[in-house]
């Protein structure tokens, strides 16, 4: 009742679903771990109780997000084998070691120090506890380094040889594999994206509490810190994204053609299509709103430079245009909206109205989840834009799958969808419940917290210490 295409389609859907869900958590925890490190460092340096309160406030949220990241990540390390076993066999000798390094240098570091970070503050002293926080933050960065190296290698494979049995084998130099051409760009763009995702969540939570009580010191501090990130880092991110685009044009031109909606070649300057509806059947963009020659200006820095279109690419080597075209516009649109909030915050700061401009706070609140949408849209752009390949130009997606049986994949896909929405939906609700309460600095100075009833344990103990006693 199912043919082979269905099994591969279902396997792709399953991977896309599980990896997208998983990616939400690290894109938050990478930034949050660094934010916690900064907060705890400033707290130790200045003894300012507001930093301590914010540290404890966000630590509870970090614990939930991190747990969800861990369990959804374990799924990923097995999905390569269950659904993409041919890929694993062929590519394992090259990207397997990169993932092994991720486990050895990052996952253990995060997990080993997380227990001390969450439960050990009264056991090891402040200095060692800060060291544990730093190790967890460092672990998230190292993890990003290795996994993005492996991912980038699949986009821009270098430094490999093909073995007699058809396997990709490492060549002379591992540096050529690890530091493949798209890796530095992808790492920069992705890590900044994670930082901005966190900054806008923190800014949104701060804005929410400022709207209710603009005198709350914790809300003011976190909003200010987040808006500095927005003002200073969003422009850097736009530049980093532009650089990655140019790198993609060099190595994966078909992806850029799909992003731009360029079905046709433009020998004397290609237009920038702002909006339109890609029509893959007719190979044109319907209702296009375009700026003449602007695409050539951006991509080639010359308005009259020729740009090839998808007409130069054989049909069986083209990515699906519609998805890539739209996801790219969502990502870029959010990027410019973030830039707008960042600039607005500078104006507000200059006028001394950062904490009493409700429309700015409403805008920041609206933008709170924008980082997640942008990260997923960007991920879709690059991963769907890489199709129909798993290893770009060398190994097709259709030739990578396990000997799959559609009903088995369909059943497991449904199980993943049901479980993920239920479990991670509940986790999101718990995070929202925590962020709905304002940070309360004055109670956090008392490490013993309020009188505890039987059954209070490490997790609520953090809560009590963070000054939630008034609500308990």
């Amino acid at each position: 009742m199912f043919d082979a295409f269905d099994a591969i389609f279902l396997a792709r859907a399953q991977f896309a679903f599980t990896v997208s869900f998983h990616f939400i958590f690290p894109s938050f925890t990478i930034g949050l771990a660094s934010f916690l490190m900064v907060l705890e460092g400033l707290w130790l340096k200045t003894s300012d109780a507001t930093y301590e309160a914010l540290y404890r406030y966000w630590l509870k949220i970090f614990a939930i997000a991190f747990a969800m990241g861990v369990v959804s990540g374990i799924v990923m390390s097995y999905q390569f084998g269950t659904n993409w076993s041919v890929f694993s066999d062929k590519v394992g000798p090259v990207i397997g070691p990169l993932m092994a390094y991720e486990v050895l240098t990052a996952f253990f570091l995060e997990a080993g120090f997380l227990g001390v970070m969450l439960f050990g503050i009264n056991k090891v002293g402040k200095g060692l506890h800060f060291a544990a926080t730093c190790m967890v933050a460092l672990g998230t960065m190292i993890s990003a380094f290795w996994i993005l190296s492996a991912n980038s290698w699949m986009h821009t494979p270098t430094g490999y040889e093909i073995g007699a049995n058809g396997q990709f084998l490492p060549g002379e130099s591992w540096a050529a594999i690890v530091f493949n051409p798209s890796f530095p760009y992808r790492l920069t763009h992705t890590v900044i994206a994670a930082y901005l995702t966190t900054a806008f969540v923190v800014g949104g939570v701060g804005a929410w509490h400022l709207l209710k009580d603009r005198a709350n010191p914790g809300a003011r501090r976190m909003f200010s810190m987040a808006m500095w990130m927005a003002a200073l880092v969003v422009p850097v991110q736009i530049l980093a994204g532009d650089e990655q685009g140019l790198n993609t044009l060099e190595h994966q031109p078909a992806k850029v053609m799909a992003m731009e909606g360029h079905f046709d070649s433009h020998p004397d300057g290609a237009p920038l299509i702002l909006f339109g509806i890609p029509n893959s059947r007719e190979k044109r963009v319907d209702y296009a709103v375009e700026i003449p020659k602007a695409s050539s200006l951006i991509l080639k820095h010359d308005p009259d430079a020729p740009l090839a279109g998808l007409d130069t690419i054989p049909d069986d080597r083209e990515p699906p245009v519609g998805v890539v075209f739209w996801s790219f516009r969502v990502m870029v649109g959010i990027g410019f909206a973030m830039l707008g909030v960042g600039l607005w915050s500078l104006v507000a700061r200059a006028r001394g109205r950062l904490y009493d401009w409700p429309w700015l706070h409403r805008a920041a609140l609206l933008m709170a989840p924008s980082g997640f949408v942008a990260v997923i849209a960007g991920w879709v752009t690059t991963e769907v834009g890489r199709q129909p390949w798993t290893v770009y130009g060398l190994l097709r997606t259709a030739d990578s799958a396990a000997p799959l049986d559609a009903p088995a994949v369909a059943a497991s896909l449904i199980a993943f969808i049901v479980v993920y929405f239920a479990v991670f939906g509940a986790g999101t609700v718990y995070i929202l419940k925590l962020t709905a309460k304002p940070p309360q600095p004055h109670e956090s100075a008392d490490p013993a917290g309020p009188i505890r009833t039987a059954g209070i344990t490490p997790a609520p103990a953090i809560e009590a210490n963070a000054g939630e006693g008034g609500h308990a």
Partner: protein
Amino acid sequence: MDLAVVWACLIAFAVAAYVVMDGFDLGIGILFPRFRVGKERDTAMNAIAPVWDGNETWLVLGGGGLMAAFPLAYAVVLPALYAPLIAMLLGLVFRGVAFEFRWRDPAHRAFWDFAFCGGSLVATFAQGVTLGALLQGITVKGRGYGGGWWEWLSPFSLLTGASLVLGYALLGAAWLIWKTEGPLRDDARRFARVLLPLMLAAIALVSLATPFLEARYFQRWFAWPGLLVSVPMPLLVGLTGFLLFRALKGTRDWLPFALTLALFALCMAGLGISIWPDVVPGRLTIWDAAAPDRSLGFMLIGAGVMVPVILTYTAWAYWVFRGKVDEAGYH
């Protein structure tokens, strides 16, 4: 010694580390409904909350390491065990988030306690089934899995699944004897006294069934020089079981856990004797499936440096949370 052997030992070490470390916290999950709601459950949870994440990372090293060092084995084994592995992953999702969620949502704590137990039980049973399915042999075609979706299911794999549930539960009970006191420790002792004979019976059943799965296991165990091991092995298991039974009545709280570890070590040694030098028992040797030396060598540099470092800071994290735990966290 060649690199494939080194990596086989490293992955065996990762799997063994996983089994004993996540074993006790999965075991506590399995026993969870038997603890009284409130103080007992909270204390049991606290006994593992700071360390479970690190424990589970060994599973990622086992899986990731297998893909990196023996990609062909990874490509053959994982599709063959599709259903139990997906069940294990989903079980781990539930029990992993329960560590945080049960504190965050007192109104639904009973549900997350159920998820904690159910997830632990499913994950453990699936791991045991995985072991049984590997031992009974999987169908290999070319460079891939050639069997059907239910090939893993057999009386033997169900037996190994049930055995692992008993084993982890015993390990969890022994951990609680060590880490807690009062009524919870008394309960843990009681559970361990029930679980120990069941576990010994399970070991006996699996050990008796294994040599008849494949002629080569039979050869390995009942022909010279295998008899050198197969005769003393049951005696060692019996002796350890006897010592453990006595330790459960004694006052040295750490001893039952140490002896349960010894039981597990004996089982794993027996397993190693059955399958060495295969990575997919009876189908692929470690040399058939090994990645090229360039991959193994590159990883060995990392493992050589990092595994001792990991063991050091893991030991430190356990040291920080040493001593008895109660329902209010560590004192």
